[in-house]
């Protein structure tokens, strides 16, 4: 260790050391000379003799310093300097190579930083490995982290294995700050939440058990994100009173930026309220709670699970649930270290598949980039034959040359990596915009790990693309090169061409993948839904969050629809409890069918005269009518619950409508039953979707809608504002984003492959100038020369395609679950991909071919 430190010291004082050694040895020589002079030799002779006796002074010096300074370390510095000089000498090549690598490495790093969250990140909490989610498993089926509040309180009080247990209820909040209503994600948590998570507030304080009791002043903690976006990071936000629903609540603290609750995705809570407020501000149908606990130090998850299971079974026994089912109940604990979403893997097959697909595609791009630069380097290496030969001639070993060349390629790739990092923010946001971020635990954050990754990938790619060229370039036949008559290595041309062929194959696979998904998308977009999604805007509203009772809620819906329908620019408006693509039963308002464009075949739609007290009425779709009434008209007939459970009471059928498809991939139309929301159970309501048909672009109508809503109820915020078309689009988000990604990657690979082929062919033409000159002077005309060069390129491409077609058939299995109406061997797609590839590649090959045909035979023959 001490030796190592001393060595480093020497490395820093290298110059001083060299000077010392040189002087010391010179003094030594002078002393020898003096000695010789004393024994009677003439001074000149003595000087010569002393030099002779000492032998090779330089060698002695180098040997001596080799003891102190590792020679390899020093020669790497040398290699780097030489490499740098070499790169600077050819700016065009360097620019192309660095850009290529920047694309490859940058894209990979961006994907890594996105995946990082789901693969490696841990919750921001004290000892996150101690945190656990309890899941209750019945006799069959999957476990659920849902408990009643009584069960929670019992588990918390009676357990001996947990340091603490907390209940939470994620919800939506309508928050009014400075007269501006807004919907935010948030949650109710029991008082000890923050203490258990072990985080400290950024500003103000967190609430505790003392704040979480009925009758206490309502308080809230807000997230750093909300604090930044809504309060401009103003410390005066702490202590401010905001209105949650209709209740004034005091903000008492802000969480630190890294704290995301139990989420590693961007979908974390922006406002946290003590649990006691849930009864007055929570959603009406939220009656169960999720739990998170912290294990006591030294307790295993299994012990704690057993402890909790015992308590739970005891509770069931006491409350009369002592049957076999209850006895089979069991509480298991899942680690909360990495947040609520489990890691990618068997528990999340779809995300895993998508992730694997993206990762494979991005790796192919990197591979194509590597192969591409290997091609360019190979082409370059011919022009460096003389340099290599010279170095070999003056004593460099082949290993040394290979190291030199590898150092250069690693240098290149690190430059590429740095350039890639420069654009990282841009690349990442581009990726985020095409990925269905809300569905995946993607949260782009760059830190030292991203840097480490980029650095590692850079070194790796440098070695990958540098190895083959390095070995090829360092294999130089000394004699002919020095004599100025280099042999054009046949093997070098072969190597470059197979690399281009490999690029062609990989690019084809990407293009075919993108093509297949594009075709699927095209098919999907042609699917008929049975309603007209254009020009319809949708938004959720949550009257319960404002503390509205049933009567006020009903009044709100009616006033809202009335106001909206009579607003200029809006042609129709209505409401429905369930999303239109959610299935076979829906609670709707008057005018629903007109608003979303479902044709009424017979009878009428609901009207304002269908109320809670009037005759129960229902509307059915054609196939339901056919099923129960055959060819007879169902209008005026009664349906009862024992015939169809979707009717909760005897109901008079007043209308028949066309059927709709509920999803893009739905093979058939869905038989549906509609009831007026006014006749539904009270607990079924509390929130509703508003539909607005506009006369112009629906997204442009948003301000009009907001204004109208404000007129009806100033505290009412719109949530999940979307267009119906957009909503449908989201259901095929994965297909769309994958098509876009593969399309981008395919295009990228295509550009790279054509650069590679262009470089290789151009080089091949240059190195064959003389041969082509001879051919032409012997009578070959320009056209046949051009054809010859093009033929050569075609052979390379054909070889690439021959490998690429089976490769893409294999590779596209990865996307088969995303395909719709096409198989992964779809011939038109294959043909189109091959066509695109051929055209681009032929253009890239044509330029060198043209140059070849323009060679002047006389000049060509004189060149060497």
């Amino acid at each position, binding site marked *: 260790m*001490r*030796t190592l430190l*001393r*060595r480093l010291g*020497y490395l820093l004082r290298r110059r001083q050391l060299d000077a*010392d*050694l040189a*002087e*010391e*040895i010179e*003094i*030594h020589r*002078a*002393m*020898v000379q003096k000695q010789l002079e004393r024994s009677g030799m003439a001074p000149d002779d003595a000087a010569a003799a002393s030099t002779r*006796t*000492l*032998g*090779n*002074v330089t*060698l*002695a*010096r180098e*040997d*001596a*310093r*080799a*003891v*102190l300074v590792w020679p390899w370390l020093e020669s790497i510095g040398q290699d780097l300097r030489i490499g740098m000089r070499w790169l600077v000498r050819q700016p065009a090549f360097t620019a192309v190579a660095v850009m290529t690598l920047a694309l490859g490495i940058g894209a990979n790093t961006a994907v890594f930083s996105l995946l990082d969250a789901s693969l490696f990140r841990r919750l921001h909490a004290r000892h996150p490995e101690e945190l656990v989610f309890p899941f209750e498993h019945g006799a069959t089926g999957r476990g659920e982290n849902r408990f009643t509040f009584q069960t929670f309180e019992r588990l918390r009080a009676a357990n001996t294995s947990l340091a603490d247990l907390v209940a939470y209820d994620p919800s939506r909040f309508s928050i009014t700050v400075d007269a501006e209503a807004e919907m935010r994600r948030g949650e109710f948590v029991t008082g000890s939440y923050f203490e258990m998570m072990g985080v400290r507030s950024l500003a103000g304080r967190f609430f505790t058990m003392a704040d979480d009791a009925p009758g206490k002043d309502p308080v809230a903690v807000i997230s750093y994100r909300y604090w930044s976006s809504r309060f401009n990071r103003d410390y005066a936000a702490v202590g401010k009173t905001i209105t949650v629903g209709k209740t004034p609540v005091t903000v008492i603290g802000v969480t630190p930026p890294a704290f995301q609750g139990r989420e590693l995705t961007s979908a974390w809570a922006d406002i946290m309220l003590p649990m006691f407020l849930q009864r007055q501000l929570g959603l009406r149908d939220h009656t169960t709670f999720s739990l998170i606990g912290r294990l006591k130090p030294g307790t295993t998850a299994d012990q704690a699970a057993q402890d909790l299971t015992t308590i739970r079974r005891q509770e069931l026994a006491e409350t009369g649930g002592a049957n076999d089912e209850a006895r089979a109940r069991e509480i298991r604990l899942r680690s909360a270290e990495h947040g609520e979403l489990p890691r990618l893997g068997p528990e999340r097959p779809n995300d895993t598949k998508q992730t694997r697909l993206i990762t494979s595609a991005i790796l192919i791009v990197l591979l194509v980039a590597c192969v591409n630069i290997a091609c360019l380097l190979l082409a370059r290496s011919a022009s460096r034959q003389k340099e290599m030969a010279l170095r070999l001639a003056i004593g460099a070993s082949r290993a040394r040359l290979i190291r030199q060349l590898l150092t250069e390629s690693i240098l290149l790739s690190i430059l590429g990596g740095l350039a890639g990092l420069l654009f990282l923010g841009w690349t990442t946001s581009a990726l985020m915009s095409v990925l269905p971020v809300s569905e995946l635990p993607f949260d782009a954050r760059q830190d030292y790990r991203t840097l480490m990754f980029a650095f590692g990938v850079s070194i790796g790619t440098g070695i990958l693309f540098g190895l083959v060229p390095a070995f090829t370039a360092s294999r130089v036949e000394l004699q002919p090169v020095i004599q100025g008559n280099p042999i054009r290595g046949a093997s070098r041309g072969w190597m470059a061409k197979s690399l281009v062929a490999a690029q062609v194959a990989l690019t084809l696979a990407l293009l075919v993948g993108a093509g297949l998904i594009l075709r699927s998308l095209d098919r999907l977009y042609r699917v008929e839904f049975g309603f007209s999604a254009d020009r319809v805007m949708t938004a959720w509203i949550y009257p319960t969050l404002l503390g509205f009772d049933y009567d006020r809620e009903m009044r709100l819906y009616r006033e809202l629809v009335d106001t909206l329908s009579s607003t200029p620019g809006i042609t129709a408006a209505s409401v429905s409890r369930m999303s239109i693509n959610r299935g076979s039963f829906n609670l709707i308002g008057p005018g629903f069918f007109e608003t979303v464009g479902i044709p009424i075949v017979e009878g009428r739609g609901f009207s304002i005269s269908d109320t809670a007290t009037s005759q129960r009425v229902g509307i059915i779709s054609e196939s339901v009518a056919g099923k129960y009434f055959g060819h007879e008209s169902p209008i005026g007939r009664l349906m009862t619950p024992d015939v169809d459970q979707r009717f909760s009471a005897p109901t008079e059928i007043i209308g028949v409508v066309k059927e709709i498809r509920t999803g893009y991939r739905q093979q058939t139309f869905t038989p549906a039953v509609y009831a007026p929301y006014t006749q539904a159970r009270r607990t079924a309501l509390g929130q509703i979707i508003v539909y607005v048909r506009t006369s112009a672009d629906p997204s442009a109508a948003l301000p009009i809608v907001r204004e109208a809503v404000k007129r009806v109820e100033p505290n009412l915020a719109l949530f999940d504002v979307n267009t119906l078309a957009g909503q449908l689009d989201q259901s095929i988000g994965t297909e769309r984003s994958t098509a876009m990604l593969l399309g981008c990657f395919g295009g990228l690979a295509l550009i790279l492959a054509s650069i590679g082929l262009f470089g290789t062919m151009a080089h091949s033409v240059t190195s064959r100038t003389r041969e082509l000159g001879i051919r032409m002077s012997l009578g070959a005309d320009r056209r046949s020369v051009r054809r010859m060069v093009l033929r050569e390129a075609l052979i390379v491409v054909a070889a690439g395609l021959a490998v690429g077609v089976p490769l893409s058939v294999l590779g596209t299995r990865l996307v088969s679950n995303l395909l719709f109406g096409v198989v992964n061997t779809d011939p038109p797609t294959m043909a189109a991909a091959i066509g695109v590839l051929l055209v681009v590649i032929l253009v890239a090959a044509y330029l060198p071919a043209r140059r070849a045909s323009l060679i002047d035979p006389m000049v060509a023959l004189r060149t060497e």
Partner: protein
Amino acid sequence: MARTNTPPDLLPGTLDMLILRTLAAGPKHGYGIAERLRQVSEDVLQVGESSLYPALQRLLLNGWVKAEWGASENNRRARYYTLTPAGRKRLGAERVEFERLVTAIQRVLQTG
């Protein structure tokens, strides 16, 4: 690129020990060490600089000797090497080891 750092006649590592022994008598510069070795060994050990200086650097690196610039006998600059306490200890250890080795070799030769 194999070059020997010690004269072929010496056992590996012996040169380092001899240098340490030479310095045990007091600080010397490189030439002085070489001369001393030659004189004492009656011209048998002629150490060239191609082995002397690497050996000295090795000793420096291990902290067994210290080097300082000073004035030589006839007032010229020279770099003087001094034995450090660690070097003295090392010399003792190497001597014991070396004598054991020599005795062993002699035994083999005599009984052979």
